[in-house]
């Protein structure tokens, strides 16, 4: 195998996407439900009411069922960086490995130690020690999210590193820049708060199911009250951080923004597409002059995109075509290069690295190094064959973005409505059904968010630095195909088992009496 088989890249991506999407079915529920049950146990410790202990224990039972699957899929994800993206692991392992190791030391041990106390320690440690274990379990899970999101944010916006031509890799030079980059902070807040929304929707959905059945009504009302307040606060934070995230994308990943907006031709004073249908035959990769609309229809809010992206109503927002053609003004006043120019400079950088490694005298080395440094910002572009590769899947990004935003808005209304109605909600059958049916929508919004984040940044494993084609492991495609289907069958089977167990546990409902309580 002397050239990379493109199907190997596709199957490697498919396997990673499969694992990540399955993993993300379980993690947000862990993060969201964890906080809800910890709040409930806190109320139990403060009030001493047995009712709150039973309520917390019920949600804890569902938490445990879900937690196991999150752990199972998570381990695959961590090791897939090595098994399927080995070149990536070397090229940026000096930076990327650190958050993963810190995640293990700081977060995983906390989570795994205290979850055992949480489950098996009710009669073995004091009430307060148990409550501390519950909070530490969820703090551990959230810290774990912090570090993995730091790693992910770094891939979207690489900072705090320098390329070392002797070791042929990027090396960390500023840990603070990596661990606390503004992109990482916003990503963490947005992702975790959206997980809290999902957890809250799950709790109100299950509780409304009990109200529909006329069972466990006191439990259901109490759970709705806690989860709706929590969910409303989380949904508002999600909306706010979503806006900040959009601004980061505009600055650092303009192609993702253009794809999410279906913006082919950019310009000043651009409107935000509130909704619309893309033309199925639209060619998003062509750079031939094309003013024809890419929409069958769409509704636009004038100037809003420019305002959101640049904080100016007449700000310039580049479209997909502009990003390929270049020539537009950048925020710092410079003129953007075209994709072809970036690719040429990337090839220069790669050739300079080859010269540097072959050079036998200091003068040649210095000359090669100077060329490499001058063009290194475009290093990753040197592996691309055509500017068309820079365009991600526009329809998938566009529709996913809208699903996420619309559902995010809907959840704010849902939680506010539940809080306004209070106990009167029990009499509104239609609304109760609506809330129950909203549960899968929370997962849809959550998955759509990740589709925007990950599909929207293609073809990059690391933005601008390393495309997928240069990040993979050198394996036979058949090996990856085989493991893809093994994971698909196994995860699906286990997901079905989990759903069935969850269903039975929800049907059984909370216990009203526990021996040795």
């Amino acid at each position, binding site marked *: *195998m002397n*050239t*990379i088989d493109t199907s190997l890249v596709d199957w490697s991506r498919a396997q990673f996407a499969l694992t990540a999407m399955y993993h993300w079915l379980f993690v947000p529920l862990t993060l969201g439900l964890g906080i809800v049950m910890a709040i409930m146990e806190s109320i139990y410790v403060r009030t001493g009411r047995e009712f709150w202990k039973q309520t917390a224990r019920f949600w804890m039972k569902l938490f*445990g*069922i879900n937690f*196991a*699957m999150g*752990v*199972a899929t*998570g381990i*695959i994800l*961590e*090791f897939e*960086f*090595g*098994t399927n993206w*080995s*070149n990536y*692991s*070397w090229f940026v*392992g*000096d930076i*990327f*490995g*650190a958050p993963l*190791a*810190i995640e*293990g*030391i*700081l977060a995983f*041990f906390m*989570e*795994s130690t205290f979850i055992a*106390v949480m*489950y*098996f*320690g009710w009669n*073995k*440690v004091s009430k307060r020690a148990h409550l501390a274990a519950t909070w530490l379990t969820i703090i551990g899970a959230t810290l774990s999210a912090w570090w993995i999101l730091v790693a992910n944010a770094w891939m979207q916006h690489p900072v705090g590193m320098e390329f070392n031509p002797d*070791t*042929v890799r990027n*090396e*960390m030079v500023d*840990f603070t820049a990596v661990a606390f980059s503004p992109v990482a902070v916003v990503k963490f807040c947005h992702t975790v708060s959206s997980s809290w929304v999902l957890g809250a929707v799950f709790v109100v959905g299950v509780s409304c199911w009990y109200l529909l059945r006329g069972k466990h009504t006191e439990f259901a009302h109490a759970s709705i009250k806690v989860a709706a307040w929590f969910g409303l606060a989380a949904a508002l934070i999600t909306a706010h951080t979503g806006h900040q995230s959009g601004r980061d994308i505009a600055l650092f990943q303009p192609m993702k923004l253009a794809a999410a907006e279906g913006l082919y031709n950019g310009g000043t004073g651009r409107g935000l597409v509130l909704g619309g249908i893309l033309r199925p035959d639209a060619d998003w990769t062509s750079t031939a002059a094309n003013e024809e609309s890419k929409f069958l229809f769409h509704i636009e809010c004038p100037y809003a995109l420019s305002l959101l992206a640049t904080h100016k109503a007449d700000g310039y927002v580049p479209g997909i075509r502009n990003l390929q053609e270049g020539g537009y003004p950048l925020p710092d006043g410079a003129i953007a290069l075209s994709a072809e120019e970036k690719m040429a400079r990337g090839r220069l950088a790669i*050739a300079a*690295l*080859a010269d540097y*490694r072959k050079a036998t005298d200091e003068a040649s080395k210095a000359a090669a190094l100077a060329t490499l440094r001058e063009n290194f910002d475009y290093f990753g572009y040197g*592996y691309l064959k055509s500017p068309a590769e820079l365009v991600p899947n526009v329809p998938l990004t566009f529709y996913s973005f809208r699903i996420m935003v619309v559902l995010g808005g809907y959840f704010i209304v849902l939680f506010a409505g539940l809080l306004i109605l209070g106990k009167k909600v029990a009499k509104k059958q239609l609304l109760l059904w609506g809330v129950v049916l909203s549960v899968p929508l929370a997962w849809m919004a959550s998955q759509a968010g990740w589709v925007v984040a990950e599909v929207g940044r293609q073809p990059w494993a690391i933005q601008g630095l390393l495309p997928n084609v240069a990040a*993979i*492991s*050198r*394996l036979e495609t058949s090996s990856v195909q085989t493991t893809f289907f093994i994971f698909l069958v*196994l995860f699906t089977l286990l997901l079905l088992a*989990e759903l*069935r*167990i969850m*269903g*039975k*546990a929800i049907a059984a409902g909370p216990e009203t009496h526990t021996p040795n309580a």
Partner: protein
Amino acid sequence: MNDISLLQHYWWFLVSLLGALLVFLMFVQGGQSLIWTLGRTEEQRRMLLLATGRKWELTFTTLVTFGGAFFASFPLFYSTSFGGAYWVWVLILLCFVLQAVSYEFQLKRGNLLGTTTYRIFLMLNGILGPLLIGTAVGTFFTGAEFVVDKSAVTSASMPVISHWANSLHGLEAAFVPQNLLLGISVLLLTRVLACLYFINSIGDSALQLTCRRRLAIESAFFLLFFLTWLVRWLCAYGYAWQPADGSIYMEEYKYLHNLLAMPAVLALLSVGVVLVLCGMVTGLRGWHRAIWPAGIGSVFVVLALLLCAGWNHTAYYPSVVAPQCSLTIANSSSSLFTLRTMTYVSFIIPFVLAYIAWAWRALDRTPITPEEANEKH
């Protein structure tokens, strides 16, 4: 030693310590492999699973942290071994996936596959997990079939720097007798530790008696396999590297030389072996806490072996097809800055160990009873 060399040695020590703790904590796997051997009744099987069920997360986390620490400190190993020995690592991961869900799902209503299926999953993980991990670690001494060429990054058509030289992608390690001996030794050690752990944590005299009987058999087989491996290891050629230019060469009795050159490591190995033997003997005589000398001893032994693999100018991941590509702690580590940053983070480890010890004590203060095993969790 200059700064980076010191930190490379420090991080090899930490990674080795995590590996050693992992082997100790794999008593969970050993216990799973003995579900039906030790558990004659459903009640006994529930007690066995409850005892290991409280600890599986720790084993799992140690494996994940071992991987993360290896990635952060020696990324070239992560890149070369995981991307090359693909099938071995995938199989190990699959075993651990099955374990993670099986504990939680096995007794739940509506679990789709039935209690027995999940327990078979646990048993599979119990046997294959230690066997595969032991076999994979065996390649630290016997070598693997990989090639590394960092200049490949400059190739537009094939920029991947490392590749495996055969299509078995790591499975070939199982055909090397020395690797297999180590794999079987690790499996048997986990079963010995499991018997001792059950004796300590389960308050059922019939089950304790069964565990003691089983301990005698497992200990005998473990000693047979491990001592065979140890003697062959001490007599084996090893891959050494020249500090001056980093070149790799074969050295007779390399690991014996390592032990002699590092008396502290030799002492660690010797004390470890004695402690493991003490644990076995006192466990057979009915001492409930024999898991502790045996557990600490196994940590010492594995730590000493792994230190011998990487310290004293030894290539810890030799390439048998291109020896000059072999990985050493010097040529595969992270940069000085990253190692230093990670070192500050590592100072938190004693605090982590302290709260693990608290939680362990809190949960294991009273032995598991049949009543507790039948409670809903």
